[in-house]
Structure formats: C-alpha cells, structure tokens
C-alpha cells in the first residue's frame, strides 16, 4: 500500500513538472489566445448576427441580449491578445475560464431543454442543418470547451519561471 502511494506521488510530480515545463507554458497560452482571437473575429465583424445567435439560446432575458452581443466579442479578443502577449496573462486566463464555463452551462442547458442551436462559437457556413446534426454539434462543442478549459487552468495555476506572474 505504501509503495503504491509512493508510486502515485512520483507520477503526480512528473505530471506537474510536465505541465509546468517551459514549452508547455509557452505554447498553451498562445494557442488558447489564438483560439479566442479567431473566434471573436466574425462576431466583431457582424454584431447583429451575433445578437441573433445569443437570442437563439433563449437563456438571457431580452434586455441583456444586445449588450452581451456588443461587449462579449471584444472581451474574447482582448483576453486572447492578453494571453498571447503575456500582459495581464493570469487575469485573461481567469476570464477565459469563466467564459468557457458559462458557454458550457449555456450549451448543456439547451441540450437538456431540447433546443437545437448553432453554437455561434466559430464562423460557420450558413446552411440549414437538421436538429439531430445540431445536437451532435453541440455535444462536440461541449467537449471542445472542456478541453479549452483545461488549457486555461494550466495558465491560471502553473507557476513556471517562463510565465510572468
């Protein structure tokens, strides 16, 4: 039993060492930042289209839909740029983590309620999809958001020398 515990402990340290290694700590924020900058772009280019997507979720009360459509894309862009540049990096990681949790709650809520929607996360070709295809897409979006959330944790919780803190 004791040996088992020891082995687990060494594995854990090795994992932490890997997660806080220089390359991971350099690559993860940049990759996560690029994802958010990319996803913000179409929304910044066309706020009315994004407002409609937010409304389609049927979660926010009406008076909040347009303010969210005005501010959220810029929040994604600025947080993404902060992650890439390293300026305010941890704060940006916190914001992105919170945004991802909110997105996941919104997607799951609509999955449970049976509301088929286009995620609106990334620019997509405007083609009519069946509800089944939309639900499958929403599940994939959830999985992707979970992966991105892990990346934001890496930026938020690691303390390697390479990251400015």
């Amino acid at each position: 039993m004791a040996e088992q515990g020891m082995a687990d402990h060494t594995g854990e340290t090795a994992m932490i060492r890997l997660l806080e290694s220089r390359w991971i700590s350099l690559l993860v924020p940049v990759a996560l930042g690029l994802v958010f900058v990319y996803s913000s772009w179409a929304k910044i280019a066309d706020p009315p289209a994004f407002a409609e997507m937010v409304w389609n979720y049927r979660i926010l009360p009406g008076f909040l839909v347009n303010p969210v459509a005005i501010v959220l894309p810029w929040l994604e862009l600025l947080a993404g740029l902060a992650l890439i540049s390293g300026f305010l990096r941890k704060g940006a990681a916190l914001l992105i983590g919170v945004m991802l949790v909110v997105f996941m709650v919104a997607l799951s809520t609509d999955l449970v309620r049976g509301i088929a929607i286009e995620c609106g996360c990334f620019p997509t070709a405007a083609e009519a999809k069946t509800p089944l295809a939309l639900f499958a897409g929403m599940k994939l979006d959830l999985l992707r958001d979970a992966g991105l959330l892990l990346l934001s944790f890496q930026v938020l919780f690691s303390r390697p020398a390479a990251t400015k803190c």
Partner: protein
Amino acid sequence: MNWKRISAEAAIILIAAVFVGSGTNGFRSEARRVSWIPRVVAPPKDPSLLYVEITGEVALRLHRAGAIFIDARRTSVYEQGHIENAISIPVWEYDADNRVSALQAKGIKPDVVVVVYCSGGNCEDAARLALKLAKAGFFNVYVDKDGFPAWQSKGWPITRGKQR
C-alpha cells in the same frame, strides 16, 4: 496564487472590452450595429394573438391584392433579392425600431394588411418583426412562414438591389 491581483487583471480586461465594444458600436454603419435596448425583445407567451402565420400560397394572394410586404432579413441578403415591392426592416440591425416608426410616418394606416417574411425554415426574424409591428399598433399582421426561398423557387415576382 494571488487571487486579488488576478481578479484585478480580469476586471481591467473586462472594463476595456465594455469601452471598446460600446465605442466601436457607435461608429458602425447601421447594418452592422445593434441598439443597446431594442423596443421588443422577448417573445410573448401567446404570439398567436398578435399575428397570424400563413403559407406562401396565401401570401401570394395577398401580394396580388396589394398587401404591404416587409422583409425582416439582413440588409445584405435583402439586396441580393427580395419579394417585389417589399420594404426592408432588418430586425436585428440598429434602426429597425426607427423604420417601423417610419412606416407610420409614411401614412401607412394601422389596419392595412402587412405580410412579414424571412428565410423560411426555422427563421424567427419575421415573427420578431411581426411582434414589433403589432406593438406599434398594426393589427393585420401576417407571417409568411415559407419565407423567401420558397417564394423564389416558385418563380413568383422578386426584385434585386437596394430599397428605393
């Protein structure tokens, strides 16, 4: 972990996003801009009282009878092709409320038959606009639920280009 500092950093980014977002929104063209608070936003509990859904065939008959048609889709889509004589009121764009008011200013009476349409299928822009019109006092509002694609595919009268 210095949570105080991290939250402060997050707050700085959030405040910057609010400023840049509201700042840029003010300078956009109306087709690329949203109003902070549109006049009608939430779908009502029972929308059937405010407008009536009709099929494309019924809409065509109303068109021939001289009903007013209103296109709820985006400006760019309207310009690519719309039902003949349709008025453009893109429901998600900035001046939708003003354009509804402008209808009344043009002397269109609240009892005229108004047919609203969007791109058919699951599109809800026409229903949203129908609500706006109903709240503005129009009481003969119809929604063509087959929408523009069905109208176009049947070869019924359409025109292209900007609104005259």
